[in-house]
Every structure is written in C-alpha cells, then in structure tokens.
C-alpha cells in the first residue's frame, strides 16, 4: 500500500464531469484506490463516495493505492488531480 | 457471451466440471485448465493465456480458481487484456450451478463475478 498527499488543482474542483473521469481512470487499475479527506475515506471507484467527499479546488486529499499495480495507479491519479483543468 | 476459464490444482477443475455436468447436464463454453505440481511458471502462464484468449469476447473472461494466492490465481489477476478479465477464487460446486443459470441472463462480467462471489459465500454454512 502506498500513499501520497496533495492539493486538488482542478479549477472547478472534482465536480461531476472530472469526477466521472476520475472514476473511469481508477477503474482501470486492479489495485484498490481510495481518496481520503479530513479523515473520511472514499472508494475511488465509486462515484457516490467521490462526489460525497466534495473535493473543491485547493482541498487537501490523500491518495491511497493498494495492490499489484499500486505504483502506476498512484502516479496516474496524482497526475490527474494535479491538472488545472480538463 | 462471457468467456469462462476454470483452473485449479491438479485435476480438481476437471473433476469439478464433470461432476457438475452429471448433475445439471451439459455446460457449454467453458475451458478447463488443469495444472501440474511443480510446473514451470512460464509454461503455466502461457497455457492460461491461451485458454483466456480462446474464450475471449469483448464482454470479457471470467476466471474461476480454487485458491486465492495460487500461482494460477495471481497470474490471471494480473492479466492485462483489451477486454476485462475478472477472477473469482474459492470456486465450489454451488457456484458452478449458479454459473450455468446466470450465464443466460444479461449480467455483465462484473455483475456475474459479484453474484458468483455471493453464491459461493452463501453456500458455506455451519451446523
């Protein structure tokens, strides 16, 4: 299992469209993927849990990936969340 | 049609399927991959790959194995194909029955894997 902390750079936060993209991205990996904000953990493959986290521009979030391809998963997600916009 | 591959230690998968067939009749479109003790990993991997590719469609391939953590399980879990490959471990007879019934419903591969896991677990009771 590996983790990384970062801030959401998406201009509009992780609202519906990028959240959808995020889910599709996470689904590609075999590893379990979680985003944690303020102690709340959300399954990165669940649109419900990700939206409920309400990730705004500038929110601090921890990415947790666990599984055979966790390194890849973490890198890809980190890149995605560090983008400024779609 | 979702492709099905059943694998496990020794002849277990072969016996499992033939037993199931005796009870519920013919089971079509399933490839059985028996394994040998101390088989060369690269050899096993090639055989599993071939089996998966044989039954593949864009709906994907569901691999049913006997034990989580076995070489066969790990190899299949880490397969990367253009179509989805899912693995359900701990296969038992009730799961094979369920497989026969569910294959004709319109479940996609994730739905099917989900249901087989449920059926497998639910069939384990204690008295």
């Amino acid at each position, binding site marked *: 299992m590996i983790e990384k902390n970062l801030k959401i750079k998406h*201009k*509009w*936060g992780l*609202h*519906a*469209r*990028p959240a*959808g993209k995020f*889910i*599709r991205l996470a689904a590609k990996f075999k590893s379990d993927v979680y985003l944690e904000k303020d102690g709340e953990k959300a*399954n990165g*493959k*669940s*649109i*419900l*849990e990700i*939206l*409920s986290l*309400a990730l*705004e521009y500038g929110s601090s979030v921890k990415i947790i990936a666990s599984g055979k391809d966790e390194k890849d998963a973490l890198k890809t997600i980190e890149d995605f969340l560090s983008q400024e*916009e*779609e | 049609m979702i492709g099905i591959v059943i694998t496990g230690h020794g002849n277990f998968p072969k016996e499992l399927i033939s037993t199931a067939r005796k009870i519920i009749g013919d089971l079509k479109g399933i490839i059985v991959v028996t394994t040998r003790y101390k088989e060369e990993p690269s050899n096993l991997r090639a055989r599993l790959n071939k089996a998966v590719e044989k039954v593949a469609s864009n709906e994907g391939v569901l691999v049913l194995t006997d034990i989580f953590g076995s070489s066969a399980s790990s190899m299949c879990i880490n397969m990367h194909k253009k179509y989805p490959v899912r693995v359900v471990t701990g296969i038992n007879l009730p799961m094979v029955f*369920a497989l026969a019934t*569910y294959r004709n*419903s*319109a*479940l*996609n591969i*994730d*739905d099917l894997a*989900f*249901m087989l896991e*449920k*059926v497998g677990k*639910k069939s384990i009771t204690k008295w």
Partner: protein
Amino acid sequence: MLIKGIPASPGIVAGKAFVLKPEALTIPKYKISQKEVVAETKRYMDALVLTRKELAGIQKKVEKELGESYPDIFAAHVLILDDPSLREKTVKIIEEKNANAEHAVAQVLEKIGKTFSHIEDSYLRERAQDFKDVGRRILKNLLGKKEETLTNLSDKVIIVAHDLAPSETAQMDKKNVLGFATDVGGRTSHTAIMARSLTIPAVVGLRDITQRIESGDDIVIDGHEGIAIVNPPKSTLERYLKRRKQLAVLEKKLDKLKKAPAQTTDGHRISLMANIEMPKEVELLERYGAEGVGLYRTEFFFLNRRDIPSEEEQFQAYKYAAERAYPLPVVIRTLDLGGDKFASVLETPKEINPFLGWRAIRFCLARPDIFKTQLRAILRASIYGKVSVMYPLISALQELRQANKLLEETKRELKKEKKEFSRNIKIGAMIETPSAAITSDLLAEEVDFFSIGTNDLIQYAMAVDRINEKIAYLYQPASPAVLRFIKHIVDAGHRKGIKTAVCGEIAGDIQLTLILLGLGVDELSMGPVAIPEVKQIIRSVSIEEARKITEKALSLDSTEKIVSYLKSVKEPLRLLYEPR
C-alpha cells in the same frame, strides 16, 4: 380556465391533454429468509441490468435526435448504476436485514439524500437528483412497472407535464404529439427546443398546470402568446380554431416566400436573419428563408454545468454552425452571462442588482482567461464560413477598445501557434445601453457593424425590469423614447458608413416591421419562425410608404398614439389574413 406562461414554440393547437405525472411508487417492505437472500440479490441485479439496457437505449435515441454536443447526462447515470459502493450497500441491507430488494434500494436512496444534503456546494448537492433518478428507475424495474412513457400514444394529444427531459422526449411517439405544456421551463429549456425542432406549439412556465388538469381534459395552447386554456368554453375554442386555420393558410402562403428576397415594392433591401442558440438550429435557416444567423447566442453552452466549456468544445460548435450555414454569414455573440452564474466558484458575493452588474463584456474583460478561450474558439472557427464576432453590453468606447485589444492579442497568439483564422473577421458591438446609444457616433468608428439589443435597451432606457409584474407595462417597444433611440443609433452608424441590425424581440414583431424599415434598419434578426411573416410585410410596401409612416409615428407623443396609428395602417397587414 386560462393560465399564462411563457411562449416556447409558436402555433396554436387544441386537443385532449395527456398528463405526465410521476407515479407515486409504493415501496413494499417485507422480510425474506436467509435462503432467499441469493435469489433476492439476483433479482436486484436483474433490475440493474434492465436499467442499464434502458439507459443505453435512451442515450442512443437522444444522441440521434439532438446530436452529440447535447449535454450528456446519461454518462453520469451509467456511472451511478455501476457504482460498486451502491451495489455493496444495497446487497448488504438485503443480506443483513433480510430485506426485500425494493426496501434495500429505498433505504440506500434515503441515506444518499441525507449525505448530499450536508454538502455545502450547491452544484454538487444537486447531483443527488441524479442518484434519485437512477434509483427510481431501478425501483420501477424491481416492481415490474412499465415506465410511464410517451412511446405509445393511442391518440393525438397535447402533452402536459411538470417538465420534459430528453429521456422522455427521445422515446416519444412523435406523430401523435400535438404540443407541449409544462409547469416550469423557459425559452431555452429542453421542452422549448424539442417543440421548435418538431415545429409544434409549446407553452412553458405555466407554474401549476399539472395540478389543474387531468388526462382527457380539453386544452388549447397558444405558443405565440404563451397561454394555455383548460376546458375552454365552446366560443373560445372556436375562436382559437379559426385563428389556427388562418395561421395554417398563412403558413402555406409564406412558405412560397422562402426563396423570395426581403425587398420592398420599390426595390429596397433589408436582410432577414435568424437568432439561434445551438449549432443544430442552423438547419432552420433554409427552412424559413433566413439570410444568415444575425445572432448566435453562446450562453446555452455555459448553462447547466459548473465548469466552462473548453476551447475545443466551443470550437467544434462554432465550426459546425459556420460550415452548415455557409455561404450564409453567422454572427457569434460573446458570452452574455451574469457573473452570478459563476459566483459559487469564484466566491464573489451575490449581487443585489445583477441586471446592472458584473455580466457580459464586463465579466469577460475581468476574466480574460474565459474570454480569450471563447475568442480563440471563434477565431479558429472563422475559417470554416463567414463568421463575425459581436460584443454584448458595450457601455463605453473604452470597453470596446479593451475587447478589441484582447482580440488582437488572441490573434497574435494563434498566429504564433500557426493556427489559422480569418484575419479580417468583422467585429460588431451590441448597442443595448443608453450610454452606447448616445455615443454610437464614437463607437461607429471602431466597429464594422452595430446590432441593437432592444430587449435590454428598452429596459435600461425606460428603467424597467420587465419581469416585475407591477411595472412590466412600462416596457414599451413602440414608445417615442425607444423609436428615437433606434433612429439615433441607425443614423450614427450610417453616417460612419456602417450597418445596423436589430436583434431583439421587436425584430420579429410584425406590428413594428414598417417602422423599423422606415427608420433605416439594415438587418432584422429574429426567431426564424417569424421570418416569413416579416418578409411578407416588407414585400407589400414601398420604402417610401414605410418612411412616411415612420415620420408620422415619430411625430406622435405617446405610445398609445403610436400603437393605434400603426394599427390603422393595416392595409399591408390585412393582406396577410385575407384568404385569397
């Protein structure tokens, strides 16, 4: 019973109502045995599978009908349907509480509602509705209920609903639909767009019509006036049917005019253009004989979403419009939205007076990142047709200069990137503020054309908020003030050798066509449906007559006098309604 709403699609129709009411679902709750858990889980899964199929079918239909650029809400619904967490939660309830699937789904939906209600962000909070919609579909499939769809209408009916979503209209049995009447919505809501594309009448914003009518009741809707009449008395019904017949005759006559030029009897030409909101509407140019798009409102793109459309998205839309319209011209207006639209994201305080506030060009100049993205898209699209760009709400020369400066900057950037665009793209300014009107002589020096946005100009000029029922009567297009404003602007433009268009609602108002003609307006841009009638009027007078009428009208000192004078000049108008 007469209910007033908002006209959404022109025409009059009378018929039986078909009221689309969301069915109240009774959720059964019962216990299942442990043995039945697997079967119940399977039943839930089967419902998911069915729902998945449903959504795929609807998605396809909507795409086919409205094109790919139409907002795709179904992508989100599909994600929700396949959400592993939702599935786990539901099945857990079935297993652990020995509950039937319907109850489990209802429980999960309730939980979701609670979770989302705590989210501060209003846009995200609204996403809860998507979950509810999907949940409702799943429940219906579990209960074995057929969707109350419009797929099989046994008779021709007028659909009455709270609102109409793309998923509903996509499956509609179109040949049996006579018109729409909805509680909510506006000119750009889906109902209106659908009705216009089907060329059937529609009235929206009727507030509570679904509560005041039953399926099978008689209803008349007038899409011109925005009126719905439930169970009209015989005399009223006859009156409307007569008018409908007149309109049908008129339409036939006018259809012949499609190819005819908009020209007075003594050869004076005026251009008749169309106002559009979406690229696909370019198809209407040919149908109604428009000579181009005089106003492409780009706001539609920006609505109903949190982020802004990307340059690429916008480019594709503008390119489509430019290409399809070619060789006819397309005038694209830059973003005319209020800053309040973006307030939640930019954390700006709510404006007390958004109408006089941070919107349109002011917003764009303050947000060059957003403005330039749009300009880039427009410039890149300009090589695919005859594209001009127009700035809304210009209130001073300084603003115009700033906007043009940003346009030049954008051009330089594109040049550097070796991206092609039309070097000499024409630039226009919307004249809709009194300050712009009175300094139009100054503005005329630095633009290629004017377009008078009368909707806003009248409000600002007469200090009237037309939505305020108490004073809406003061909103008077045919008033001396407004006519003088228009004259001033047109004259200022002509003196500097530029043309002036009118693109507000009055452009399509046949009561005012003669005056606009006589004032020297060079172009009228209106909802395409109005073009044939306006053309007919133009073709039945000489410019001399029009000028005389205008002179007389300008000499009158009140709206009442002007309006009654115009009514008396009914000769050309009378011709329209005589069966010949």
